[in-house]
């Protein structure tokens, strides 16, 4: 399953809820303001690193660049473009947007 999160983990509870309810082996794609969850040095970093033992985390490149965060992506996060986003949707049997 592909989980899509588009909000900053510092503003909303959506990434936290997503990680709580994502089964082992799921993929989590961070887009829009969600990409802040994929970056280094913040207080949410530990939760994402811990979650990466069970889920694969992706972040959308155009959203990282727009926010000036492309150079501080957490190790282990895969950066994808919109084409990669489409591939993730196609590769997983279903997807849930954590709005």
């Amino acid at each position, binding site marked *: 399953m592909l989980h899509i999160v*588009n909000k900053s983990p510092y503003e909303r509870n959506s990434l936290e809820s997503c990680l709580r309810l994502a089964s082992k082996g799921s993929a989590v794609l961070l887009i*829009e303001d969600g990409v802040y969850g994929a970056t280094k040095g913040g207080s949410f970093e530990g939760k994402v690193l811990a979650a990466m033992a069970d889920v694969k985390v992706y972040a959308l490149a155009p959203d990282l660049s727009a926010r000036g965060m492309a150079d501080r992506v957490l190790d282990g996060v895969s950066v994808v473009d*919109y084409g990669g*986003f489409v591939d993730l949707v*196609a590769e997983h049997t279903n997807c849930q*947007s954590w709005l």
Partner: protein
Amino acid sequence: MKIGVLVNEGPYTHEASDSAYNFVKAAIEKGHEIYRVFFYHDGVNNSTRLTEPPRDDRNIVTRWSELAKAHNLDMVVCIAAAQRRGIMDENEAKRQGKDANNIAEGFRISGLGQLVEAGIQCDRLVTFGD
């Protein structure tokens, strides 16, 4: 693969419409079929031809219209959500006794059933919202 897209927020205020547009373009480039783009909640506000954004900014509405024309996209605006928010086509305006309509080219107003039907017909349904 047959993909449906749901857009839940209006233009400019949230990035949802941008993300959906970029996703749809990429999916078409990858050879997928976009079965339908369904506009719900404030998403219906993407379909008004009365927007006039600053010249140095993207024009979200006409960008959708052009993409639809180029790729024969089915862009459906939920009728109930549209009525609440003031999106009207010629028929609806007549039916509701309104003196104007504002829908842009390439969008059609229809029922929520079109969303459920897209969920049934598509291999994937991807939602963009707030």
